[in-house]
């Protein structure tokens, strides 16, 4: 059998290496050498177990005598100064998918980019656009041609001036098929841009974009588009440096390579953890008041909020709030609430029975009391029945809550008191707040119309695929504005918009929108959009607008100048942190 007798013998001999273990075991024996049954002394066990005991018992004891004192103890953490001078500490929630403003599309990335960069124009917090890299611009040829005149003295962080060539390079890169930029379509109104992006033309000189000289940038549109100027304040259209992008390839956005022109510069990027921005002394509007911004990525809201309460974050928003936290702080001076241009709605698939009948859709729209949504979500949401938000000129033209009229319409459609109403599914993505909304909707419809609908939830990406391919009769959806103009909302329900999942289309509606896009007169434009809104929310009713979201923020008393833009951009260039503001 080939027994290794030596090895066997060796293992039976007392090995030197277990002396340590033997002495360790002795610790637990009251009198070394006595029987196990007596030796393992009870009194030693709590000693050894003390840390574990503490972990379990402490919470019970503390909650028993617990109170709401948030700043009660005098431990070292509490003694520390609660803030760092001229440093703003915030929570991004998650890792920005990328800081290349051509390929990223999400609000987290833009939160960082919009403090690193400025474009031709920039937004104020009142949704106006004001000059930035461009000192002025001319709108020529009935809104088809834009000439931007660049400001002197705007420089990159490495000292080189920002020129029209940087814009030309950037917009060309945004449109190049190889870049595969998701937001390239924002430039589709430019002559030849769509064909260049799809590879139909390879000759860039056929695209209506040109740096005439270092200070003049020309853009030609294929049709007048009144909202075009807003796009020049939007992250994907910010300039880029040809030499940097080409030299460093995929790594050009890392802090050691990135060159920017905004109020801050990227100092450090610890992926999935923290981004640090330092003040840019060369910023053309002057050095910002902050010397540093620390952007942490704390995904769990309760942890982020605990960090805020422990003075380890100076500013938190929706990402760092649970609803009970909002309730608890609603009356605190640290709490504020801003309306956002983000609308939530219920949609019908009008190709499926019984929602091919407009009377059923109208009945549903009138049977849902939108005032329940802010009551259950409790973040100051604004109920709405029209699709254009009030901030962009919406006037509440949609169908309002009217149970009697809703019941009448439903019985006209052949379902008196909800009798004989076919099985109806309402699809929603798997998220807590959305679940609350659809449950409230289900409840309203049951109570007011006697109709029972079934709720179906799907994981986010599955839900997206379903709404795109074959949505059930009803689904919930949402839309956030890309720019502060009714166009961003109203274009959604045109026939060829990829985000119109309702299967509803109307030539009249499409015509109205196209007419509004080209209209230069502000008032006339507004009237056209309002007419389309009536068609959408009163006559055809493929959707039931529900409510507009808000941004809830908490700011520590030593921070001054925080404001939230309705597009949910947070600009920190005017923010101050320090003693004087206390």
């Amino acid at each position: 059998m080939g027994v290794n007798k030596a090895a066997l013998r060796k293992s039976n001999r007392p090995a030197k290496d277990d002396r340590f273990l033997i002495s360790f075991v002795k610790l637990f024996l009251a009198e070394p050498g006595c029987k196990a049954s007596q030796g393992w002394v009870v009194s030693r066990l709590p000693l050894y177990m003390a840390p574990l005991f503490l972990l379990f018992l402490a919470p019970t004891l503390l909650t028993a005598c617990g109170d709401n004192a948030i700043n009660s103890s005098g431990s070292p953490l509490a003694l520390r100064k609660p803030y760092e001078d001229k440093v703003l500490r915030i929570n991004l929630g998650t890792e920005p998918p990328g800081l290349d403003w051509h390929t990223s599309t999400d609000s987290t990335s833009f939160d960082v980019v919009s403090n690193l960069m400025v474009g031709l124009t920039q937004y104020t917090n009142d949704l106006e656009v004001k000059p930035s890299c461009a000192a002025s611009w001319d709108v020529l040829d009935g809104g088809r041609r834009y000439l931007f005149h660049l400001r002197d003295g705007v420089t990159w962080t490495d000292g080189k001036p920002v020129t029209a060539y940087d814009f030309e390079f950037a917009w060309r890169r945004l449109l190049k098929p190889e870049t595969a930029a998701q937001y390239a379509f924002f430039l589709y109104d430019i002559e030849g841009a769509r064909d260049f992006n799809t590879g139909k033309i390879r000759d860039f000189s056929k695209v209506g974009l040109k740096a005439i000289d270092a200070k003049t940038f020309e853009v030609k549109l294929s049709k007048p588009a009144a909202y075009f100027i807003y796009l020049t304040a939007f992250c994907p259209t910010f300039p880029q440096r040809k030499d940097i992008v080409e030299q460093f390839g995929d790594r050009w956005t890392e802090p050691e390579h990135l060159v920017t022109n905004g109020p801050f510069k990227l100092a450090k990027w610890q992926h999935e953890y923290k981004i640090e921005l330092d003040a840019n002394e060369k910023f053309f509007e002057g050095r910002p008041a902050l010397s540093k911004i620390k952007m942490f990525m704390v995904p769990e809201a309760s942890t982020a909020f605990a960090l805020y309460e422990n003075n380890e974050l100076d500013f938190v928003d929706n990402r760092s709030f649970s609803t009970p936290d909002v309730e608890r702080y609603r009356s605190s001076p640290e709490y504020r609430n801003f309306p956002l241009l983000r609308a939530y709605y219920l949609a019908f698939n009008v190709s499926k029975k019984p929602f091919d009948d407009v009377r059923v859709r109208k009945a549903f729209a009138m049977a849902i009391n939108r005032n329940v949504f802010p009551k259950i979500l409790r973040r100051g949401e604004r109920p709405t029945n029209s699709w254009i938000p009030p901030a962009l000129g919406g006037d509440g033209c949609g169908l309002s809550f009217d149970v009697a009229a809703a019941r009448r319409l439903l019985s006209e459609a052949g379902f008196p008191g909800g009798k004989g109403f076919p099985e109806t599914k309402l699809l929603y993505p798997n998220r807590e707040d959305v679940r609350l909304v659809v449950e409230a909707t289900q409840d309203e419809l049951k109570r007011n119309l006697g109709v029972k609908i079934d709720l179906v939830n799907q994981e986010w990406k599955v839900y997206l695929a379903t709404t795109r391919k074959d949505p059930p009769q009803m689904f919930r959806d949402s839309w956030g504005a890309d720019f502060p103009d009714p166009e961003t909302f109203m274009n959604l329900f045109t026939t060829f918009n990829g985000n119109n999942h309702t299967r509803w289309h109307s030539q009249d509606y499409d015509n109205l929108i196209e007419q509004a896009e080209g209209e230069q007169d502000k008032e006339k434009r507004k009237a056209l959009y309002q007419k389309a809104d009536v068609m959408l929310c009163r006559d055809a009713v493929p959707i039931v607008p529900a409510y507009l979201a808000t941004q809830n923020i908490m700011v520590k008393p030593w921070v001054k100048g925080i404001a939230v833009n309705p597009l949910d951009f947070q600009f920190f260039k005017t923010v101050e942190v320090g003693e004087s503001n206390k």
Partner: protein
Amino acid sequence: MFSLIIRRILMSIPVLLIVASLTFALVRIVPGGPFDSEKSLPPEIVANLNAKYHLDKPVHEQYFLYIGRLCRGDLGVSYKYVNRTVNDILFDAFPVSCQLGIVALGLAVIFGVPLGAIAALNRGKRQDVLAMFLSTMGVSLPGFVIGAVLIYVFAIKLRILPVGLWESPWHVILPAVTLAFSPGAYLARLTRASVLEVVEKDWVRTARSKGLSEEKTIVRHILRNSLMPVVTVLGPLTAIVITGSFVVEYIFAIPGMGRFFITAVMNRDYDLILGTTMVFAVLLIVANMFVDIVYQWLDPRLRME
């Protein structure tokens, strides 16, 4: 010994290939793709994206491309985190998880194994009841409850430890304890069962009757022999703990790799899903190989082969 290691390495190649193929198939069967988002894109843009990431090619071509890259140690690129490769992402995140995992595993072994041994050697007494109560709690309480309680007590009420983040050694304590609870409790139960079995054995009676001191009996004849099942589970347990935990990283805001097991799937970040799976598979195989080596040290009978 060497032949064992070489045999194990050779055996792992087909295993890894199967893991890669199955995962590859599964991620592509799941509905929804990496570029689906709330705002759907014009078809032209989707075509550009698919071309950039070779998703426009037939699936079998994508598969061979993937396996080819895998053989060269290239795990691909992330679709969600543009400009970052999967190798970059895991290279940043794994050391963090590993660091935290090793501390947690140490805690689990140091507390769990003796706890189980104490319980078994005092079967039916107060120590046993207490130890088993603790380990039942440890096994059944989910990480997010333990973590939340620990944060509430030590960070918010007592203010002696940080709430979260990953800045100093102090920041390791709470997450490591949270992470250690479940494996520690599991090890305790396992050790108890194993010790209970071993104390009945003839050789223990022999050791005692030949006059060996109690502690020597315990260390040399009881503990050593009852460690086999513990070592067996320690292998896979190590692989699991050092690749991070989604829950612990999430609630303590730690930049580890555990989160990618969940978020990569949610984002349909195909290469990142495959990358995390492959890294986990390799670690599991290596850990099991170590277990086999430790077996030989613990059990002389295995050395005969």
